[in-house]
């Protein structure tokens, strides 16, 4: 009753809407985020959740085409793709194939019609200094957000803003996660970083602002307002992918200086919480603990929904509906409201009520959402279809694998016996069963390190690990356990007993899976090894200790995973490159299995700088065959992501590389509102029952009370 009587929306069409009515009726997308984004400063941010937000606000020079597959880069703020020139040591232009290539110059020519969103950081005085560059404490005290400041302005995007961003990346105190990687490539960035970090330390010690405009990096030259040259060492074609990442987003010097004001930091108003960009949206509300609201940038430049030729559409498996808006100006949605949902149950129920436009499928909701056909194929349940819900599935550019420490005296090493030991274990690990039991079938068994959709991935027999599978009747069939036992015997462990010691082989698996939910998984792991007569000892540990053990090479077998930074095979194969071995790089290498095969490494160095040609493909195939034979990993799983979409949510295409996809999406607001009202009508009957039961209880109590009050004690009761 209390709930009803105090209800502020008693006369609204629905009572359970988590949004104000004006938001429900607006051209607004309703989404979720599962953990508060920590960093929205592009120099720092390196997390999918965060990129999902800043991707709509910041614009690096390049972006991934929304629809084309395989993934293809295209200009975003550039007039055309960067002009690439190869230089020798003296700076003279040479041919790409020339052996004297010492540097590569990327000439970026920016569009001149791009403006930042309106923001107080651009408000200036007549002398060009910032209007709000020195806010008083009393003014800051009144601010909830910088948008409370009355005067907002904008300005043109300039090439120097990109140079400024790279200079910020060089400042150690800003903790860019890619600085050390970029120092290997961008000419002069290493010296510049040392120099500017010293200056920054001194400047910050004196509580002054660090203006980076007077400083310059040798390899980053602003030619004019619209042209920027970036020179890198040698050849590194993947650098183009980096230019699509948010580390290379423009930073206006005004924003950098404005947000260095001490008082603003105390209000948590910094560039890390208040992004300033040229993208289709700006951040209107940032409450990382509750909700994030993006609104349309009225100054957004002209950009159109992508078009595909029929052939391109067919090769990318693009449905016709996804091309209905081709050529139309972006963005379509005016506002996006993202709400923090830490728990799966409320998220799922709100999705079913129509209050979220899309949802993933948690394990709790899997049976309700998915039905598995007789052939094992997954489809939407009838209940979902009745609501007009659609399902989008795609294989993520990620890999989860079980790794052997190649430095380990028992499972490591490159002798035929060691190879056979690892191959035997690989056969025994039934990944198909793992996917069915622990992932609800949401994944495909990997055959190598490169996932589908990435150059170098091959289907069919050519892409099969023939050390683990047989190719029978056009299908992959895992080799039987007898084959694995035979390999194990050849490795010196017949029946799992060491021929040298006569003892059962005991292996150690390090894991952070210590919760009660993980018991079943660990039991399953033990069973896989037990098939070969091997005892598996689970060494559960916390994440810090686990990482430390991996860094120091003090593990034997462990599980690990990798999400692609960019869709290039190099981004997966470098996980097995000897030069990146974690024990040889003081823990900073990416090759946590410490795999070092000279032939593989030589091929890696070659493919690293090659374009996607048949020759590159051939070399990659060779590398994968080498790795399959050595078996440093049990290849594991390429996970498949499933997304459910309401019928009113359109233009949604699975693009695992692009983060700036909000601008392409469209909402049919009328349909959504109609269905929200239809699905959420308050049920009144329980109200009457509650009133009725309460009335009976009260009446009963009154009656008992009156009866008790009117009792006259008998004489013997009084005496007792």
């Amino acid at each position, binding site marked *: 009753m*209390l*709930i009803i009587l*105090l*209800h*502020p*929306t008693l006369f609204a069409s*629905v*009572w*359970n*809407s*988590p949004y*104000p009515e004006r938001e429900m009726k607006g051209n607004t997308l309703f989404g979720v985020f599962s953990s*508060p984004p*920590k*960093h929205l400063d592009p120099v720092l941010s*390196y*997390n999918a959740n965060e990129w999902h937000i800043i991707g709509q606000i910041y614009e690096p020079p390049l972006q991934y085409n929304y629809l084309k597959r395989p993934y293809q880069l295209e200009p975003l703020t550039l007039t055309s793709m960067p002009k690439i020139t190869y230089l020798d040591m003296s700076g003279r232009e040479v041919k790409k194939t020339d052996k004297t290539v010492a540097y590569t110059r990327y000439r970026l020519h920016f569009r001149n019609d791009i403006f930042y969103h309106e923001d107080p950081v651009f408000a200036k005085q007549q002398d060009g200094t910032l209007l709000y560059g020195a806010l008083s404490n009393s003014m800051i005290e009144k601010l909830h957000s910088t948008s409370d400041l009355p005067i907002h302005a904008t300005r043109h995007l300039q090439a120097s803003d990109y140079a400024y961003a790279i200079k910020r990346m060089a400042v*150690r*105190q800003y*903790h860019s*996660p*890619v*600085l*050390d*990687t970029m120092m290997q490539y961008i000419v002069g960035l290493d010296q510049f970083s040392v120099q500017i970090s010293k200056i920054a330390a001194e400047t910050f010690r004196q509580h002054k602002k660090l203006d980076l405009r007077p400083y310059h990096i040798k390899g980053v030259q602003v030619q004019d307002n619209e042209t920027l040259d970036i020179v890198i060492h040698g050849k590194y074609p993947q650098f183009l992918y980096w230019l699509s990442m948010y580390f290379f987003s423009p930073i206006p010097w005004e924003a950098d200086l404005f947000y260095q004001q001490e008082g603003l930091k*105390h*209000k*948590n108003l*910094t560039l*890390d919480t208040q992004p300033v960009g040229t993208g289709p949206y700006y951040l209107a509300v940032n*409450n990382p*603990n*509750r909700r994030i609201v993006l609104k349309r940038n009225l100054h957004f430049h002209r950009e159109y929904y992508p078009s595909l030729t029929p052939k391109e559409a067919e090769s990318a498996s693009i449905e016709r509906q996804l091309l209905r808006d081709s050529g139309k100006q972006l963005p379509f949605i005016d506002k996006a409201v993202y*709400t*923090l*949902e*830490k*728990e799966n*149950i*409320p998220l799922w*129920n*709100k999705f*079913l*009520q129509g*209050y979220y436009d899309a949802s993933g499928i948690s394990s709790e909701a899997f049976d309700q959402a998915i039905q598995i056909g007789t052939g094992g194929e997954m489809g939407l349940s009838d209940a979902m279809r009745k609501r007009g819900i659609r399902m989008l599935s795609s294989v993520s550019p990620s890999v989860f694998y079980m790794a052997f420490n190649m430095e380990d005296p028992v499972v490591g090493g490159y002798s035929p016996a060691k190879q056979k030991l690892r191959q035997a274990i690989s056969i025994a690990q039934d990944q198909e069963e793992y996917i069915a039991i622990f992932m609800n079938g949401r994944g495909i068994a990997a055959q190598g390190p490169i996932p589908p959709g990435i150059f170098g991935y091959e289907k069919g027999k050519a892409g099969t690990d023939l050390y683990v599978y047989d190719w029978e009747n056009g299908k992959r069939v895992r080799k039987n356990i007898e084959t694995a036992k035979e390999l194990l015997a050849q490795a010196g462990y017949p029946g799992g007993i060491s021929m040298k010691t006569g003892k059962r082989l005991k292996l150690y698996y390090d894991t952070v899976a210590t919760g009660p939910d993980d018991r079943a998984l660990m039991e399953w792991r033990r069973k896989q090894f037990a098939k070969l007569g091997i005892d598996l000892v689970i060494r559960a540990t916390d994440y*810090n200790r686990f*990482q430390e053990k991996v860094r120091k090479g003090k593990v034997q077998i462990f599980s690990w995973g990798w999400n692609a*930074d960019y869709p290039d095979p190099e981004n997966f194969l470098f996980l097995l490159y000897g030069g990146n071995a974690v024990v040889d790089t003081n*823990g*900073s290498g*990416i090759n946590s299995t410490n795999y070092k095969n000279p032939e593989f490494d030589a091929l890696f160095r070659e493919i690293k700088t090659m374009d996607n040609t048949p020759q590159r493909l051939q070399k990659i195939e060779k590398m994968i065959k080498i790795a399959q034979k050595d078996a440093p990993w049990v290849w594991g799983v390429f996970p498949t992501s499933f997304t459910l979409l309401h019928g009113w949510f359109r233009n949604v295409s699975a693009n695992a590389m692009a983060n700036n996809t909000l601008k392409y999406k469209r909402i049919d607001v009328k349909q959504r509102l109609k269905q929200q009202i239809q699905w959420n*009508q*308050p*049920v009144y009957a*329980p109200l009457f029952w509650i009133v009725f039961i309460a009335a009976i209880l009260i009446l009963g*109590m009154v009656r*008992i*009370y009156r009866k*008790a*009050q009117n009792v006259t004690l008998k004489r013997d009761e009084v005496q007792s």
Partner: protein
Amino acid sequence: MIGYLIRRILYAVPILVGVNLITFVLFFMVNTPDDMARAQLGAKQTTPAMIQAWKHEHGYDKPLFYNSSAKGIEQVTDTLFVRESFRLFLFDFGRSDANRDIAEDIKSRMGPSLSIALPTFLIALVTNITLALLLVLFRGSVFDLSMMIVAVMIMSVSGLFYIIAGQVLFSKIWHWVPISGYAEGWESIKFVLLPIAIGVFAGLGAGVRWYRSIFLEQVHQDYVRTARAKGLSEIAVLFRHILPNGMLPILTGVVVVIPSLFMGSLIMESFFGIPGLGSYTIDAINAQDFAIVKAMVFLGSVLYILGLILTDISYALFDPRVTL
């Protein structure tokens, strides 16, 4: 009383230093500053230079308790423990390891936590006392017996069940309130109604049983018999005599929890999407954010001590036999 208060506040200082010391020791037994740097930097490839820069900026490059490279008193004062502890005693919580102002975060999260905790506390108090008095009124009756059985049943079920069942019943099936969410101002009412109702209901069993036992103790006192002998109705006896005398143990038990209401409720806030303080500490532990952990442990200890002091004061205020 002022002398007593000063004494209690002075006693609190070594307690808080001790709590702080235990927090430091426990946290750094599990996490090294290098681990913290890696967790905060979030990079796929973390280099020693990155770790060093992060530690230096956040002061974690200093020794924990003893600085052998310093001289004189600085060997003790130029350490992480003394530097951070001193700031805490000035209520300067500083910045989190993720570089957010902790005091500002606490301030912004305290309101939503209180918007659930305070009404739940007050409504539960009134409801529990009213129901307990009713049961005392009908003591020994079928109503009393059946309500006691219901109270034990309510106590026996996990709070999480009430949350999920409440969300399913009131939000999913009956569509009366949003499943989760929060808004500022009056808009927040529809979001907090269900968590408050669930909070009150979940505490009903234990509360009613406790208060009933307190009131039952009073029912057999001489002053109650005298009141009845004067010809007062049972309701008048309950409200005019039993309730005021029963309030003393209730008040002392209740006042101690008032300061901790600020700290919020982890599960309730997580399930209902309330942006309060409930999950602040747990999130910080998971993120290895020591700055928040130590600030919240310190704040929790201060509020607990404050609760105990308030309890003592309430004794003195409500029981004339007690002087401080």
